[in-house]
């Protein structure tokens, strides 16, 4: 009970500091508990904003561990039809047109703060959760694919086949649109990581860092403050929660 009260205080404090645009100056002591998991009956809260920091320098061209791990985590089957198969995450190879240097990065839903997919969805099935995760509510998705038209990152896939043997934590079925959900089941469980991030660390690359970018004490926030990072298509002003370093 007491704990809850402290949280309330912190929330109102954060709100104020956010309004003044000085969230980054907030003393870390007060925010220490933010990273802890929520209780199962506690709704996702806007005091968190989950995101990823992807370090292109750490990403290896040969490695595909994040993609494999994602497919396994969410039970994404390979039907051998690359144009219609679902991809939550993909390895993108970039070649600098002037220098010829190349690098690879994982690309997935960027979890925008102002997502075009949410704007265009006629039924509101595409939505942004309080903690910044952009999701598709498959109970109301009618499969019109307008969100796929609107996404600047080609992050979404349409389920073109009848599916069976889905994994319980990622329900998915024919006729709906889906995309990276930032392993929302892990987030709700307080695991503070994603399948891709875990797999990347396991390979020893540390290219994908998951964390709360609203929490100034989190590792991701510290890095975002310390290093120069980029937002893909920053010209669109979408304020993505996935940031890249080294591009």
């Amino acid at each position, binding site marked *: 009970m007491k704990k809850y009260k402290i949280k309330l205080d912190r929330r109102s404090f954060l709100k104020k500091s956010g309004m003044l645009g000085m969230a980054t100056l907030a003393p870390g002591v007060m925010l220490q508990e933010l990273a802890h998991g929520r209780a199962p009956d506690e709704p996702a809260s806007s005091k968190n904003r989950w995101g990823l920091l992807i370090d292109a320098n750490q990403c290896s061209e040969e490695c595909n561990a994040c993609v494999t791990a994602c497919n396994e985590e969410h039970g994404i089957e390979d039907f051998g039809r690359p144009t219609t198969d679902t991809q939550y995450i993909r390895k993108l190879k970039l070649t600098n047109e002037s220098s010829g240097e190349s690098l690879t990065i994982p690309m997935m839903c960027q979890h925008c703060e102002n997502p075009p997919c949410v704007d265009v969805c006629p039924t509101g099935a595409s939505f942004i959760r309080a903690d910044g995760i952009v999701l598709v509510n498959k109970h109301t998705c009618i499969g019109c694919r307008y969100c796929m038209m609107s996404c600047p990152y080609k992050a979404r896939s349409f389920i073109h086949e009848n599916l069976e043997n*889905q994994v319980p934590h990622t329900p998915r079925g024919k006729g709906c649109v889906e995309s990276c959900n930032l392993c929302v089941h892990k987030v709700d469980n307080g695991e503070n990581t994603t399948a891709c991030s875990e797999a990347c660390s396991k390979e020893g690359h540390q290219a994908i860092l998951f964390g709360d970018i609203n929490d100034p004490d989190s590792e991701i926030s510290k890095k975002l403050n310390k290093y120069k990072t980029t937002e893909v298509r920053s010209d669109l002003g979408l304020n993505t929660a996935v940031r890249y370093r080294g591009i």
Partner: protein
Amino acid sequence: MYKILSIKIPLILFLALYSGSSITHENINHNIDASSGDKCVEPTDVMRAQHHIFINHQSHETVVNGIRTKKYSLKNCINCHIKPLADGTYPSAKSEEHFCTACHIAAAAQVECFDCHASKPYKKVAKKEEDAQN
């Protein structure tokens, strides 16, 4: 007299048919695993009439607000109620041996859940299938 009869006969017919259907309901095999606990999250008659309402409500709470309490979660229904087949694997929702399907066929109500949701427990089935392979 005729007037009363003309009202009563359809009524009697309706009641006869209706009670008939409930008799059928009692008779079908529920395929619910009774060994996993002594009672459900609500009394049986409440669950029988309203389980879809609980599940629908819970689905909204989970997807939109990230609330993952176990009580009315579909995952929990399945984990608790599903009854393994003779070979130790679990039936899929397509088979009448699945506890949802048998009843829903009898009631002629279509289940949409398993268009997307897993109809068998995740870890358990994986283990069983692994065992079967070994």
